[in-house]
């Protein structure tokens, strides 16, 4: 290998600084959440304790965070499943030109770039003017889909741009019906990417704030609850909650990565032996 140019070391330093910039603040509140009972929102640490984590389990201190966590979790799963199914169907639809496909494509882009508060406001207005009660599982659910679906579809577009169509042709040549081609050829090949879509669907929903703001009704989701806390809670209990939900997000991400890794490993093991000679 040729020797590294000097720019490599400069850029490595830059990259490390960038990573510190990305993770530093989060790590700081991670440390500060173990603040002693008398400690404040910044250093110095006045002792080390689990005091603020214990506080999370007391209703008076923090309000209904466990209820909101449960709602956010369920909503995240609902959005995740819907995002995967609708994105795959949409991705398959967009492989061929159909009437109205370019309009639909621009709608997807609009859904991505529209200021979130417009979705919140518009959905809220429709619901209130038609006399329906806004609820996280109806209006909130739909409003979040306008944020997760564009990401799911962009991933699907990227996947199908790289998809080798000769696998499908081979399956058709062997007499597979269109449904069999999708079920036994296309879906297994794109499965790891679907895990990615699912991960986006869940985490984007779990952390979504602006589009849920006016559409979730009287039962808050977790981000709304946390935002409410920022205005009236001035103790490290905020950091403890932040640390806990961040750890939860990281565990979810890890879980998804693990599934992708296992899928890939299984695929490598059961892969084709074509060209490797007789066994």
């Amino acid at each position, binding site marked *: *290998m040729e020797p590294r140019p000097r720019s*490599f070391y400069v*850029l490595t330093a*830059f*990259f490390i600084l*960038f990573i510190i*910039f990305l993770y530093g*603040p*989060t790590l*700081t*509140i991670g440390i*500060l959440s173990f603040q002693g009972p008398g400690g404040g929102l*910044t*250093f110095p640490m006045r002792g080390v304790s689990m005091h603020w984590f214990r506080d999370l389990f007391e209703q008076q201190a923090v309000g209904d965070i466990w209820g909101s966590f449960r709602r956010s979790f369920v909503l995240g799963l609902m959005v995740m499943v819907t995002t995967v*199914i*609708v*994105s795959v*169907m*949409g991705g398959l*639809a*967009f492989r061929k*030109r*159909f*009437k109205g496909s370019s309009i*639909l494509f621009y*709608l*997807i*882009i609009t*859904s*991505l*770039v529209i*200021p*979130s*508060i*417009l*979705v919140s*406001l*518009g959905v809220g*207005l429709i619901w209130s003017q038609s006399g329906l009660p806004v609820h996280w599982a109806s209006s909130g659910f*739909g409003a979040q*889909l306008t944020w997760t*679906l564009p990401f799911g*579809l*962009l991933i699907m*577009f990227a996947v199908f*741009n790289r998809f080798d169509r000769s696998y499908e042709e081979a399956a058709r040549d062997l007499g597979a019906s269109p449904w069999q081609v999708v079920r036994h050829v296309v879906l297994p090949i794109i499965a790891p990417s679907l895990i990615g879509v699912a991960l986006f669907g869940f*985490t*984007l929903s779990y*952390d979504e*704030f*602006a589009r849920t703001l006016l559409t979730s009704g009287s039962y808050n989701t977790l*981000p709304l609850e*946390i*935002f409410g806390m920022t205005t009236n809670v001035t103790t490290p209990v*905020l*950091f403890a909650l932040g640390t806990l*939900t*961040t750890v939860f*997000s990281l565990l979810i*991400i890890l879980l998804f990565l693990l599934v992708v890794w296992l899928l890939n490993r299984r695929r490598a093991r059961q892969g084709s032996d074509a060209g490797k000679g007789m066994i």
Partner: protein
Amino acid sequence: MRNNSVIGWLLAAPLSLVLLVFLVAPIAMIVVVSFWGATEWSIYPAFQFDNYEFLLTSDVTYRVFFNTLKYAAITWVITLLIGFTVAYYLAFHIRSLTWQIALFLLCTIPFLTSNIIRMISWIPFLGRNGIANSTLMSMGVIDEPLEWLLFSDFSVILAFVHLYTLFMVVPIFNTMMRIDKSLIEAAADAGATGWQTLWHVIIPLTKPGIMIGTIFVVAQVMGDFITVRFMSGSQSANVGRMIQNDIGLLQYPSASATAVILLITVLLLIGTLLRFVDIRREL
């Protein structure tokens, strides 16, 4: 051929339904309500231009729109510089694919955690008695705490950069990974210096990625209200905040009028950017 179209429609039906109910209809509703009237506690259907007239004749509107564009422009420049550098490093200086993926994931993970928590996490850094101030003071750089670190335009931009640089890194990295490495070798063989290769080969080929990143960042910053509210301690305003204020006062018609103008601004900006890039081809 007809059959194809029908299957296409069936497959696209759920997507179209969601977008119709939760995107198109809400926009239509906002446009309609922007012509309505409001009393202090209720809104009533009407067809009047009062909301727009009030909005377009008040210089607060122009100041706030200018402020919003200022945030977008500054954030765009900084995220582009950082995002490009990071993507360049990952694409051209990291030699094994495994490491590229690992470091890329490292950059992506924060995007999947809560934005609000990531904003909160700046408090211990930037506060009056925060880490930045106490470090600078103990180093003797400053004598008293800097007041402009938290709750200022500085902290707003810092948070934007922190939250959205990723939107630049991902598409630029994606485009760079598709650049044929033999082009770089050819440039070197033809006697180009590293800078010349960067300027005449890599940057032109990376333009689609830069455009996509720009679209993401500009859209996010233009439509934001929560970062500005939280990081400026309600001392700065952007259009999103203006809308949110009106909503808080139950002035939905005037919030809607502002929202319509914001939407037009954003769509014009993004529409212009889209002319320079074919998103679907570049993914």
